């Protein structure tokens, strides 16, 4: 970047708002992508802690056989809420809405997203959805107890507040769509001069691919959810088998979205991994084009495999083997990414700082998640382990071990940039280790229990599962303890951490060329891009001396 090294003496976006208001209004009515990113961070982190706490209570109930602290109905609503909150309120919006909002415009050299006001609108739609979820807990009828998949016909038979809770999911989907539209348009229209497609950082590629899935897939769940609500409220026959409907069609339509949604969750995380690995290996990424293209490939082929959630659902055997074959093929692009990341460390200059440790954590946990997915893609084994703890373990390794881990990785990588402060690195290193231990204790036994035949969504279990359930519960204490510990030291660092420089890690993507925290509107002058995204020879021009 030719203008990359100018020291800008501007005030940060915390001090100067983009609107004429001051105080809290300057935040609530802001159209600044960075402020909106921060607001998302606060809201989403809150719901993540709520979801984690619910998970903690579920594990407590399973500590001993029989009733431990709650009844079966409470347990059923808790696993539903854990799913709804973690999926719709945390992991789907998580990385794109927080880090995508904050860093996508900066990384392509733009002052904001294409539609700043729409961006604020999506935030408020998200908040409305979140409030609806909370309200559905307290109005008569009781919290939803269908599981987060809302399978027909149970979801139209049960008396709980299904309609309101799934309407919340519809609203949240709308927020997700608007964010997607915003990001696609931003990447197409607002790249800085010289920022060609193949000069974009890989996080931008990943977020771009994600945005496409958000646009194309989300409407399908939208209409499916609307149909369930219409069936419940007006008694219209669409899916209800008693009226001639087809419950398997519901499952198709549900997974047509919800499988690609898995890629909405994981793709941005993969983008962050590419950023962190290059920065701390201080060399260019190995296989830029394959990684960028595999993001698009994953986004596309993600549509071809939804019915692998339905191998025992009673769909046709023809569809079953076709989807199994497609599933195996989709495994490949993710594999390509893993290999390229490891190859990027080869002959680098590796400084295993905290964000890098999170990435190592990610590569291990996500590999387990991905490889256990092969067991679920293979028909003979899937019939046995589907709908058991094996699946629960698998998707927690993928979602939490993958996206969740990188949520923390990104947090630790970009924290100094977002807040201009540095956290306690010793605490942070300890957290990576306890996270790793707690995580594996919590979820690995579930693989074993699943293969032994422990079905999921069970309030209670046979005595033979007791020892493994205990290990799992103890793991949950370590894991949730770590999460609260991380929250604690990060909050402490906000005010008391030492001031961070503009480029504490020696990164070269555009966000490291501007001060920490970034000034309002990011760049005094829109930069002209001449370098490849991970060209570390720039460090000299940037006068980076560390």
């Amino acid at each position: 970047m030719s203008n990359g090294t100018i020291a800008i003496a501007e005030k940060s976006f915390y001090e100067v708002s983009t609107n004429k208001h001051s105080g809290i209004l300057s935040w609530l009515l802001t159209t600044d992508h960075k402020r909106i990113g921060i607001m998302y961070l606060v809201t989403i982190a809150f719901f993540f802690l709520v979801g984690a706490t619910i998970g903690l209570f579920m594990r407590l109930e399973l500590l001993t056989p029989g009733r431990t602290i709650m009844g079966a109905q409470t347990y059923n609503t808790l696993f539903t809420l854990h799913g709804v909150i973690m999926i719709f309120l945390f992991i789907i919006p998580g990385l794109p809405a927080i880090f995508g909002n904050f860093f996508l415009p900066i990384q392509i050299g733009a002052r904001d997203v294409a539609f700043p006001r729409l961006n604020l609108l999506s935030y408020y739609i998200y908040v409305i959805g979140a409030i609806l979820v909370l309200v559905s807990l307290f109005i008569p009828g009781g919290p939803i107890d269908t599981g987060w998949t809302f399978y027909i016909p149970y979801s139209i038979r049960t008396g709980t507040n299904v309609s309101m809770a799934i309407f919340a999911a519809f609203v949240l989907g709308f927020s997700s769509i608007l964010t997607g539209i915003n990001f696609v348009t931003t990447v197409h229209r607002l790249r800085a001069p010289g920022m060609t497609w193949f000069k974009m950082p890989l996080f931008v590629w990943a977020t771009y691919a994600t945005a496409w899935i958000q646009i194309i897939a989300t409407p399908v769940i939208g209409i499916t959810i609307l149909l369930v609500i219409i069936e419940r409220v007006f008694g219209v026959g669409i899916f209800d088998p008693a009226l001639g409907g087809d419950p398997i069609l519901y499952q198709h339509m549900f997974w047509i979205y919800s499988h690609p949604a898995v890629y909405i969750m994981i793709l941005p995380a993969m983008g962050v991994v590419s950023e962190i690995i290059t920065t701390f290996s201080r060399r260019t990424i190995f296989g830029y084009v394959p990684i960028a293209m595999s993001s698009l490939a994953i986004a596309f082929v993600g549509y071809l495999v939804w019915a692998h959630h339905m191998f025992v659902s009673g769909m046709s055997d023809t569809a079953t083997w076709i989807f199994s074959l497609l599933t195996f093929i989709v495994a490949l692009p993710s594999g390509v990414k893993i290999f390229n990341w490891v190859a990027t460390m080869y002959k680098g200059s590796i400084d295993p700082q905290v964000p890098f440790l999170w990435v190592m954590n990610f590569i291990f946990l996500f590999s387990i998640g991905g490889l256990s997915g092969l067991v679920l893609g293979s028909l003979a084994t899937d019939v046995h382990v589907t709908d058991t703890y094996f699946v629960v373990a698998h998707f927690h390794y993928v979602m939490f071990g993958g996206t969740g881990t990188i949520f923390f990785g990104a947090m630790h990588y970009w924290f100094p940039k977002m807040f201009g402060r540095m956290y306690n690195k010793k605490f942070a290193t300890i957290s990576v280790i306890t996270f790793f231990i707690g995580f594996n204790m919590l979820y690995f036994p579930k693989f074993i229990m699943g293969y032994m035949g422990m079905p999921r969504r069970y309030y209670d279990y046979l005595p033979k599962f007791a020892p493994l359930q205990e290990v799992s519960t103890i793991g949950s204490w370590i894991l949730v303890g770590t999460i609260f510990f991380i929250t604690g030291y990060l909050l402490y660092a906000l005010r008391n951490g030492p001031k961070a420089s503009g480029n504490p890690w020696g990164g070269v993507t555009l966000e490291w060329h501007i001060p920490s925290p970034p000034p309002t509107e990011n760049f005094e002058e829109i930069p002209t891009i001449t370098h490849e995204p991970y060209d570390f020879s720039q460090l000299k021009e940037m006068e980076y001396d560390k």
Partner: protein
Amino acid sequence: MEHEKHEHKAHHPGYGIYILVWMGLLALTSITVTVAGIDLGAYTLFVALLIAAIKSGLVINIFMHIKFDEPIFKVFLSLSGFTLFVIFLLTFFDVIYR
């Protein structure tokens, strides 16, 4: 239409072509209604959908002027159309063979 293209932004046709397209749409509608009266057996659905596809092609190309707009929009359009096609195709692997 040529002189209008010079006067205004090149990608916007004038009144005349819109009215022509509208007349074409009306004609297609009357054809599809007439044809529906004839029993074509298995082809009924096919013919009706074919005519609907032609009509939507006219609307998208001229009324929504995608024909004159940025080429990338066409890529987007085919992308979403292809996604729909894939969804239908794969779902019917289940429905037909069940």
